[in-house]
């Protein structure tokens, strides 16, 4: 009898890229729902649009590069990019912000570099930074964190807002939007108030604004699920959070009136989602265990530094992109010791002879 031959291992493969990404998407669900609950239907509308655009651009680019379209789409990586991008922008940002951001993410940051696996920068963050610096007004339109039942806009109205770029009825943006906790903190400190005065606002919960902190909790839940399923490893998320918390804690202890608490930093903005979902993007992160710790810590520290003394209150995207640049070097410098060799030991003289 004759048989097909195939290379080892002869077992059911443990993982597939599509499967890994699917787990990531599943882990994003609780946080996304929490965000929708606190920031309105716009979140869902954006996620839908983001995913749609991302898949469309991905398909077009793959076809243009004459690669198998369906097989590539099955890796689900475009969906993750689209989804993460949509979570990063304000829930009622007009659709063209998403369109431009995703176009940049998929076309430039991903495919012009060779597609999945070859992109040195996290595509979603590249897209985000592009729209952040290009459209500061639109990117500041964060609604106040309320709850869905109290939300000023229904699903349909949200859709309308996103598509037309203006609020339904005669509503004013000012009535709907509010400074994010990071903005509030920043502006408050600039105008000479103390941290205590700023956080005394009834909107603040334990660590930061109630809505933001709950969203953080749910993303944390998803992140822990990924850890539990071994889709991601602990090094990067832990290092990012400690990278933010340790310097924040140091300055906070030094001068609690002018520096926000470490918990405020961790739960405001995108630190949690960044630590578990963005910094852990394998393609653009460091790959060795020690390299990942340094990479994550670098992101954390940069987030704190940029937030505190830099131009942008939420610095996750910049921090990630900056550390993306360092990742290859980190990999090179943190090569693990090979079994049977001393660290940095020479290759075997004639082990193969």
């Amino acid at each position, binding site marked *: 009898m004759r048989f097909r031959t195939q290379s*080892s291992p*002869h077992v059911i493969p443990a993982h597939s890229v599509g499967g890994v990404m699917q787990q990531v998407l599943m882990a994003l669900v609780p946080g996304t729902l929490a965000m929708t609950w606190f920031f309105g239907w716009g979140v869902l509308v954006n996620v839908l649009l983001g995913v749609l655009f991302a898949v469309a651009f991905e398909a077009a680019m793959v076809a243009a590069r004459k690669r*198998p379209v369906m097989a590539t789409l099955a890796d689900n990586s475009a969906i993750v990019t689209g989804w993460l991008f949509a979570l990063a922008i304000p829930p009622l940002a007009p659709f063209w912000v998403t369109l431009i951001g995703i176009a940049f993410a998929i076309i430039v940051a991903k495919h012009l570099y060779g597609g999945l696996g*070859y992109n040195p920068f996290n595509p979603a963050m590249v897209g985000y930074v592009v729209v952040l610096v290009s459209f500061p007004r639109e990117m500041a339109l964060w609604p106040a964190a309320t709850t869905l039942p109290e939300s000023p806009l229904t699903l349909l109205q949200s859709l309308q807002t996103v598509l037309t770029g203006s609020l339904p009825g005669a509503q004013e943006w000012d009535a709907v939007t509010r400074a994010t906790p990071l903005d509030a903190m920043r502006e408050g400190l600039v105008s000479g108030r103390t941290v205590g005065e700023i956080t005394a606002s009834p909107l603040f919960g334990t660590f930061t604004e109630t809505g933001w902190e709950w969203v953080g909790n749910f993303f944390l839940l998803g992140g822990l699920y990924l850890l539990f399923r071994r889709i991601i490893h602990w090094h990067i998320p832990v290092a990012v959070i400690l990278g933010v918390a340790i310097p924040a804690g140091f300055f906070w202890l030094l001068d609690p009136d002018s520096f926000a608490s470490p918990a405020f930093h961790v739960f405001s903005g995108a630190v949690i989602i960044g630590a578990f979902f963005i910094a852990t993007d394998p393609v*653009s992160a460091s790959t*060795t265990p020690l390299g990942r710790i340094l990479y994550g810590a670098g992101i954390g520290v940069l987030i704190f530094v940029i937030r505190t003394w830099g131009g942008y209150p939420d610095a996750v995207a910049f921090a990630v992109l900056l550390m993306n640049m360092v990742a290859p070097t980190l990999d090179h410098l943190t090569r693990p010791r090979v079994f049977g*060799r001393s660290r940095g030991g020479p290759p075997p003289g004639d082990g*193969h002879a």
Partner: protein
Amino acid sequence: MQLHRFHGGLKLADETDASTAEPVLVMGVPAKLTVPLGQHIGEATEACVQVGDHVTKGQRIGQSKGYIAAHVHAPTSGKVADIDLYPVPHPSGLNAPCVVIEPDGRDEWGDARMEPWLDWDTRDLRALRQRLRAGGIVGLGGAAFPTAVKLNPRAGQRIHTLIVNGAECEPYISADDMLLRTAPEAVFEGIRITARLLGVERVLFAVEDNMPEAMRALTETLPTELRDLIELVSVPSIYPTGGERQLIKVLTGQEVPSGGLPADLGMVCHNPGTFKAICDTVIQGRPLLSRIVTVTGPGVKHPRNVEALLGTPFADVIEAAGGYAEGVDRLVMGGPMMGFAVHDDSIPVIKATNCLLATRPQDTPSPGPVMPCIRCAECAAVCPAQLLPQQLYWQAKAKDFDAIQDYGLFDCIECGCCAYVCPSNIPLVQYYRYAKNEIWAREKERQKSDIARERYEFRQERIEREEREKAERLAKKKAAVKNKENDGDKQAAIQAALERAQKKKAARAEGSEKNSEKGTGSETNGEETSTTNDTRDGDDR
């Protein structure tokens, strides 16, 4: 005993229950045996019988020439029907020289049979080693390294620890498990012989913790007088604990140096099957003629272990396990992690055939298309050699053979853990094999060109040397000539003086002029001769 842990590895499901349910079936003699001549790692073995010869059981039919080599014997008596190239179990799928034997059904031992050595304990160590060599024993764990070589440590190398590698870490394989359950005494005898040969102080006998019955059999039969020598150790079943280097790490915490051998740590490692073979050869005078094969997988009807003669076609072995199940499409020799798929089941059992695994499409679905590496580093997380498999992959693709060696290509044990976890379905191990082959090929080329260069340089040097010598000789001669010329001047002066004196004499007496002319003439002749000599030297070159 304090156990250690090696980096990475995989916890794989144990699939040996089906094949251990029944005792080992000793298969009969098949209709035809195709015995490959090259069944071991190392140098080639050549046929020492001819087509038409009658051979007896245990007769040597393949003679090894080199040091790292093993003889091959006729598994039964019969006629040599053919000596030619036939398909053999090898990943390349290429044909190799085989001796085809048509059994006569009598299964007779001939005069060439080695006498049993019940008194091996008193035999000379060299004779023991020769006996092992004569038995054609190779490591039966799957690597098939000639055993006699491992039992002959280099001068000055002391082996203090013998390790029995009963850690059958691949899922499905249970050949060692069954051997330990059924013939622990023979294994202990083999250990005793080996321990004497090497003069070891201790024996660490490792059995995986998912082989409780084997462990029980061993504990019960361990002879009292060996209790001080042999320590039975249950090791956690993490793939690839059965890798020599990994097992040594688990047992002793020591790492075999990169590029080195366990012997560098004073250790030698063997598979239980090998000890049984040692026992058979030394005590019974039976060379390696058969081995236990696990026939298993969802693709066979009644998975079990069989003892098959070397040269038995795979198809017969499968038949002994109830035949194929419906829809089987893959046949693997070895385990699912490191084994290779064969394209034909007419190929024979060899010394390295520890397992035949048959699967259906639903058991081992073809992985999806190969995707780009996403740098997830899962491969690095499981690599027991602590390598960075994805870097090796990039370097192999880029043919950067210097970097890939620097990153430890030759420390890769090809365990397949990385390929198993790779979400992008990259056949990583294939890239490493490719790179290794490429480097070996280049190495050979280099050696060839090195030899050529050396030859050229040698010739060049010889020419230069000769040139130099010639120049020196010339210089010497010139100097000599000059000296002679100088001498000539002196002599001329003397001559002149003489002549003057003679003239004075001549003034007194006649006939003195003739003599002085003669003298000058002989000088000139001398100079001419030396010039001729130099010219001849020049022609020589």
